[in-house]
């Protein structure tokens, strides 16, 4: 049996996504900027995608800019607004456990005279509101807080945070990295007070290299890629039409029977956690410890539906990962985007995971296609190999 439990890293595209991409690549292959009919056919994919995304977000098509994915969306949002609003101030607030594609552009902005404040989170991964509000000052132009954390699955109450921020300083822009939440939740940026929102296609069965940035009307973003002025100058370069077509198809599928899909994910998650709790010395991270009066299946509803982070005392995550791989179970150690680096996970440290467990943490993540049997199989294998691997630790 194969258990692919690394869906927070990437998901498989559906057949219809593949088919529409082949069409856009091979049949309607024109350049959307060309004046002739072939160009118009290609442009149609982009127009349709924009319209359907806008409808879904209850936004306007002109508020959508296609990008190469999450990293570019985050860079465009942060660097673009910082450059556009630097005359109003040079202070930006974010959290201590953002993805590197938010953290690193902000660090880069520090070289250009911007000041960045990193707000702490609690053990559930929730932003500490008071700390956030304390940081806001006259110079603050932007707040960036991720919707769902990619390593531990904590959800932020973005609507509430944005409201609090804007009550204190109305002209502060609010950006959210929604890469792990889009497709899991229905998000309406206007209602939640979001000015900018980053989305990546391959996290919900779209292609890699496709994503978008929602930019609220009237919000100014300086482009970081200059050229022929495509996408109203926000992002020059011939649009990646096949990827945008695939993204559109994936988006139109992910919200079909959405409630059932999410319930399925929460069932998988609950079952996985119950199983993990049977294994001695395994700590499940960010399971909303505040509400221990509630049952597990109620408590998981306060966290992201698709991922479980767990620490295995005494086993290095890399070793456990490869031992699982041997049995065709595919997972991540910490976060996939950072797991090639020897540095330890910032998210795990931010939620206060014990030092000795930082290097012993795995992430199991599901998709709507994940079957309950895959979870059972994974738990069975874990029960078998964890005691074996624990016999050999550094002494």
């Amino acid at each position, binding site marked *: 049996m194969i258990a692919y439990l690394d869906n927070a890293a990437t998901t498989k595209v559906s057949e219809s996504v593949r088919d529409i991409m082949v069409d856009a690549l091979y049949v309607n292959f024109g350049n959307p900027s060309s004046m002739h009919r072939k160009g118009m056919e290609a442009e149609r994919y982009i127009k349709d995608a924009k319209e359907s995304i806008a409808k879904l977000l209850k936004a306007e098509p002109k508020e959508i800019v296609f990008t190469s994915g999450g990293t570019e969306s985050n860079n465009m949002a942060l660097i673009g607004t910082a450059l556009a609003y630097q005359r109003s101030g040079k202070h930006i607030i974010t959290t201590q456990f953002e993805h590197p594609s938010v953290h690193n552009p902000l660090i880069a902005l520090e070289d250009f005279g911007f000041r960045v404040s990193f707000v702490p989170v609690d053990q559930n991964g929730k932003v500490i509101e008071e700390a956030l509000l304390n940081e806001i000052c006259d110079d603050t132009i932007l707040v960036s807080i991720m919707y769902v954390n990619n390593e531990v699955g904590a959800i932020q109450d973005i609507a509430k945070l944005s409201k609090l921020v804007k009550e204190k300083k109305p002209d502060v822009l609010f950006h959210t990295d929604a890469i792990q939440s889009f497709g899991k939740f229905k998000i309406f940026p206007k209602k939640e007070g979001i000015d900018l929102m980053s989305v990546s296609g391959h996290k919900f069965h779209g292609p890699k290299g496709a994503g978008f940035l929602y930019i609220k009307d009237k919000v100014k973003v300086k482009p970081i890629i200059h050229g022929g002025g495509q996408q109203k100058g926000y992002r020059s370069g011939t649009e990646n039409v096949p990827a945008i077509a695939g993204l559109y198809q994936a988006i139109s599928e992910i919200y079909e029977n959405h409630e059932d899909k999410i319930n399925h994910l929460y069932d998988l998650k609950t079952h996985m956690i119950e199983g993990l709790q049977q294994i001695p010395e395994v700590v499940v991270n960010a399971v909303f410890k505040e509400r221990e009066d509630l049952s597990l299946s109620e408590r998981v509803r306060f966290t992201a539906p698709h991922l479980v982070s767990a620490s295995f005392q005494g086993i*290095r995550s*890399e*070793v*456990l*990962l*490869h*031992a*699982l*791989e*041997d049995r065709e179970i595919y997972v991540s150690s910490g976060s996939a985007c950072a797991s*090639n*680096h*020897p540095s330890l996970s910032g998210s795990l440290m931010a939620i206060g995971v014990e030092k000795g467990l930082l290097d012993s943490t795995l992430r199991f993540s599901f998709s709507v296609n994940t079957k309950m049997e895959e979870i059972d199989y994974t738990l069975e294998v874990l029960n078998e190999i964890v005691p074996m*691997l624990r*016999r*050999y630790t*550094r*002494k």
Partner: protein
Amino acid sequence: MYKAFLIKYAEIGLKGKNRHIFENALKDQIRFNLNKLGNFEVSREQGRVFVECPDDFDYDETVAALQRVFGITGISPVIVINSTDWEDIKQEVGDYVEKFYGRKPFTFKVEAKRGNKQYPIQSPEICSKMGAYLLDRFPELSVDVHTPQEYITVEVRNKAYVYSNTLKGPGGMPVGTGGKAMLLLSGGIDSPVAGYMISKRGVTIEATYFHAPPYTSERAKQKVVDLAKIISAYTGPIKLHVVNFTDIQLYIYEKCPHEELTIIMRRYMMKIAESIANRSKCLGLITGESIGQVASQTMQSLAATNAVCTMPVYRPLIGMDKQEIIDISERIGTFETSVLPFEDCCTIFVAKHPVTRPILSVIEKNELNLSEKIDELVKTALETREVITVK
């Protein structure tokens, strides 16, 4: 501009009656390295190797390929003159000097070689006539026969050739002239350099890598394959033996004191590598050890490791500093791959305080704890090894 290369070698020239063996090996190795780049004519004549290039050859690529052939000390790009008429030769040599040196002043000496003994002008005369012609054509030049800044060499055979510039080759001896040895290749910085250095002495290399899944990853193994591929550009194709070491390592872990884990593990690695080496008709083992670099490379540890082998163990890095080793690995192109952060089986089971002054008799006594199963495990490891040919 250039149509050929004259290849110079130093050490081979000192050989006696079996010199032709080395020269032929050098020729074969040059041919092997250039074959991928096109149809080159490689010939051996009068104490050197001559490479004639196809019309569409890439100069830089060819020089780079030649600079990876051990045995070569100098590479002279040569102009081929398709005539032996003295007037043509003069004209072409003059054009070459103008093109190559611009019109800068320097001192020179003309050297002549008359391979075609029928040629009417004798060597000393070629030198003086050519010198006079060049002085006449380029008044800024002057002759210095004792310590010239540049030698301009003219050779007359069935065609005429001119060269003056010599690029450095890697030196050493042509691969294939020095027998065969087994390199213990890890994913680190040192062992690829060690393999490179022994290969430079003409030794053909095979390699053994110890893989410990799931403790070491597929990527760690791929990294070793990549390293072998990088050094194979110098050494020729490498047969890489991948030995699954997990069960042996776990068994040692279970049965032996943890401070001695690394030493005992290394002793078994040497034993296994020697056993494969014997089967492959290798005459020695090669390791990347350097005195004092880590606990397992103190003199006491090296002695304890060495005691399991009867074959000579070559340790070309033994007296080098880390920085010197890094410099070589950067030069030969292995450094960037070596520093990729994947666990290898030497690091994953390390004790917190490994013994640095092991006593052989104590180690041997503790190894008796392994007697029940170890032979069987070693046999399985040998039998199940995977062999990959890397080129």
